[in-house]
């Protein structure tokens, strides 16, 4: 079990395969992972619950990752949000960073980076 075991993570991504894999991996490393492929549900969960880290995809049907970042941080200033994206240079990614996201993480996985953000908590 890793040094980051026992942390609560919310994962928002409309690609179910990615969610499943990440949930299994982070679960294996001792984290409690909440997942949803619906960005609206993700936003609601993020606002209603306490998470050590929120990880959201950028491009999703209905609501984009940068919108979730803006919305959550406007109500919960201490929320820590990572944005996963395939292209870090796209405007939406930059907008998410500007809105207060901690960092961009390579799509779909960069476990060590996620773990390092959990360790810093």
């Amino acid at each position, binding site marked *: *079990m*890793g040094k980051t075991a026992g942390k609560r993570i919310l994962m928002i991504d409309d*690609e179910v*395969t*990615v969610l*499943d*894999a990440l949930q*299994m*991996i982070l679960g*294996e*490393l001792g984290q409690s992972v909440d997942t949803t492929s619906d960005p609206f549900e993700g936003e609601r969960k993020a606002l209603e619950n306490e998470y050590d880290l929120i990880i959201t995809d950028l*491009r999703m049907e209905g609501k984009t990752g940068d919108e979730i970042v803006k919305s959550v941080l406007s109500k919960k200033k201490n929320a820590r949000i990572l944005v996963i*994206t*395939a292209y870090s240079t796209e405007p939406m990614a930059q907008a998410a960073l500007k809105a207060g996201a901690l960092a961009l993480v*390579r*799509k*779909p*996985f*960069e*476990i*060590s980076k996620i*773990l390092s953000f959990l360790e810093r908590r």
Partner: protein
Amino acid sequence: MSKEEPGYIEAFRRRTEKLLKEVQQLQETLAPDLSIPNANRVREEELSHLEHSFFLKANGHFDLHISEDEMLCTGDFYPPTPEGAPIDPDKVQERLHTLGVIHGVDRDTLSHALLTCNVDRKEVLDVVIARGTPPTPEVPAHYVLEEQFQEKKPATVTEEDKVDYRTFSPFTIVKKGDRLARLVPFKPGMFGRNIRGRELPYPVERVQLLVGGKNLETREDGIYATKDGVLKIQDNKISVEEILYVPGSVDYHTGNIDFPGDLLIDGDIQEGFQVRTAGGLLCKGTIYASDVFCKGDLVVHGGIIGKGKSKIVVEGAIRVRFLENCYIESKQDVYSEVGSLHSIVYTLGTFRTGKKGLVVGGKITAQEGMEIANIGTSTSPKTELILGNDYQVQRKLELIKDKSIEISLKLKELDSILKRDPENKELSAAREALLQNLKVLVEASQRLIHFLTRNENACINVSGTIVPGTYIEICNVSFIVPRLLKSVSLYLNRKMGRVEVRALPKL
């Protein structure tokens, strides 16, 4: 008389001589005046010295002392005054006899002391003239650990003078045939004797009585390991454990591990450490950016997080929960429950994932085929899947190709120099050697190419989806997935020489 007047120096000399004479006379007459008032201040020893040295007539004399344990007899010998009689050696013998000193008398030392005292007129104090013989302890036959197994291997000092604590290991690794302990044979005890002749019993030396346990063989000269393993010493019992059990993680507490048997790690392998095992390896945690070289199977209950710098080389099969950003080589099957994320995997067997497994990014080379649930995501980087080839042969061919190119470039360079300097024999010889080597490499690659393609029946079964853009190569025949495919098998149609897709039979 002033100092400047003539005759002053002569007068001074005379006065001095007179004074010296008076002092001499005073010394000679000093002895009877010992009762003068300040004599009380003279210490007894000084008085004795004066008596012996100058003024009194005294005979040589001596004192003998016996130590409490009766193992030593020492003597103090005082010389006679010029008028006194020397020490009579017979008197010394007589005194020794009276004191009961009959063993270990050192006659030479005694004679020398008497000579020094009687002839040279010097005191000889505290000289050992008889010494008892201590008993020799009995040493039971026993085994002692060989030195190299007693001390832990020190940590390595790097070129920058830093101690690399990862190289420190608390485990003592032994090889089959190593002599772990040598036999110290029985040594009988011997009675001692004090200077009065009394026999002294000998003690029995206390030794650690090591007993040989598991995986050891006792021979005439010692205890030998019959298996590779880790040395264990418990309650004087030594044994060799074939399995090294690490109760926690591989970290600075354990250092790097190089074990000749099977290894069981209860925790993780922390970043930057190296683990080598000649047997299997079971890691109950996760491998973080570490190098692992394993001759048996590798089972990781967690996963492998490589950070792009982990190298895992395994001769057996691999079974893990997930692979992420790592480099894997296996001569047998590789199974990853969750899948492989941005990893490079080479296997001479099959590559398989669990029912929800996902392969994203990276490159998987599997000689015997693949069974994967999902391949790629809509936004993920390209995934490369290579089947049917022996990756070891492929790697050798690539190496040959690289070297051949290097030689060709060198030849080109040489040719242009030789054009200007055609008589240069040294360069001509070098050119000849390069050509010869190139020929050897070409021949080798021609031979190897026959072993590259091993399994034309290798196929990929995808139970879930495979995204467009995925690159597939079966026995060097390439195929790029044109659209999202679900529940398919991709195989090589040998007659047509192309990769084709067919639906997976429904279960």
